[in-house]
C-alpha cells in the first residue's frame, strides 16, 4: 500500500495529521510519500516588495518547508517504525500540485488536512480538500482540523437548535 501525505506548510495541520496517524494502524511495508506544498502567495505582494525582498521571502519559505518536512518525517519514522518514508517539497497551487504528484506516485490513499473553513471564507478561499476529493483517482482521507470534541459539541448544539426551531 502506498500513502501520500500532503502538508500545506502549516504546523497546525501537520500536528492534526500526526495525531490522526498516531491513532491508526497501517499494514507493515506501507510506503509513505510526504509532500509539503508551498502555495504561491507572493505575487499579490510583489508590487510592494523589491526583487531582493521577494527572493529572501521565498528562501525563508523554502527553509521553513524543509524544517517542517524534516521534523514531521522524523516524528513519523519514530511513530510508524517504517523506513519507507520519502520527503518531497513542491511549490504551486496546492490542489493541482497534489493531483499531479498523485499521478506520478500512484498512491492508494491521499491523506490531507482540512482547515474546516466555513461560509464566505470557503467561497472566497476555495478548498484544497474539496478540490482533491472531487478530482482524485484514488481514495482520499480528509483529516479534520481543530479539536474533535468542540466540533461534535458545536454540531450537536446546532442540531438541537434546529430541532427546537422545528418544534416552534
Amino acid at each position, binding site marked *: 500500500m502506498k500513502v501520500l501525505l500532503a502538508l500545506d506548510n502549516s504546523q497546525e495541520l501537520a500536528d492534526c495529521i500526526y495525531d490522526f496517524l498516531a491513532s491508526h494502524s497501517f499494514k507493515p511495508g506501507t510506503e509513505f510519500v510526504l509532500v509539503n506544498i508551498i502555495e504561491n502567495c507572493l505575487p499579490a505582494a510583489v508590487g510592494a516588495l523589491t526583487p531582493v525582498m521577494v527572493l529572501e521571502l521565498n528562501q525563508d519559505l523554502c527553509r521553513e518547508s524543509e524544517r517542517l518536512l524534516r521534523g514531521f518525517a522524523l516524528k513519523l519514522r519514530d511513530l510508524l517504525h517504517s523506513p519507507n518514508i520519502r520527503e518531497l517539497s513542491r511549490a504551486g497551487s496546492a490542489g493541482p500540485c497534489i493531483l499531479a504528484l498523485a499521478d506520478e506516485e500512484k498512491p492508494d490513499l491521499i491523506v490531507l488536512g482540512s482547515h474546516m473553513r466555513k461560509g464566505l471564507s470557503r467561497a472566497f478561499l476555495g478548498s484544497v480538500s474539496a478540490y482533491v476529493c472531487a478530482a482524485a483517482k484514488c481514495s482520499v482521507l*480528509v*483529516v479534520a482540523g481543530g479539536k*474533535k470534541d468542540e466540533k461534535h459539541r458545536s*454540531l450537536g448544539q446546532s442540531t438541537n437548535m434546529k430541532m427546537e426551531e422545528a418544534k416552534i
Partner: protein
Amino acid sequence: MKVIIALDDSPYAKHVLDLVCRRHWPLDVEFKILHVIEPLCADAGLALDYPDIARGIEEQRARFAEKLCADARHRLEKHFPEARVHFELREGRAKNEIVLAAADWEANRIIIGAHGKNVCPHNLMGSVSRSVAERSPCSVEIIRSGSHAQTEKNTASKKEAELKAGR
C-alpha cells in the same frame, strides 16, 4: 477508535466493505455500519394516493436495509473477530443523517463511497459524499474503486487468467 461505514444499496457499497476488510485497524476499533433510508414515497406523492402500496414499499425497503446491514456486520465480524460491530438504520436525508450520526456517536472517522446509486461518468464525486466531507465533525475517507492498487490487482488477476487459459 470509532469508525462509521456509510453503506447504501449501490454496487459501490460492496467495494467500500472490501476495502475496509483489506485494511489494518487498531485493536480498539469499533465499527458502526450506517444505512440511511431516504423518504422516497413521500417525494413521489405515492403515500397520499396509494397508502397501502406505499406502506408495502417502505416495509420492503426497511427489510432490505436490515439485511444489507446484517450481511455487512456478519462479514466484518468474521474478518475482525475482536472488533465490536454495530449497525444503525436511520431515516431521512443521507447527507444530514451521516453527519448527525457521527456527531451523536462521536465517531473518529467516516468511510463513504465516492459514488452512490446515481453513477454518472461526468460525476466524479457524489453529492452525499461531497456534503459529508464538507460538514463532517470528524475525518472522512472517500473511497474510489479506481485506486491504483485495485487496478494493479485486477491487471494481475487478468494476467493470471490469461496464463491459465494459455496453458
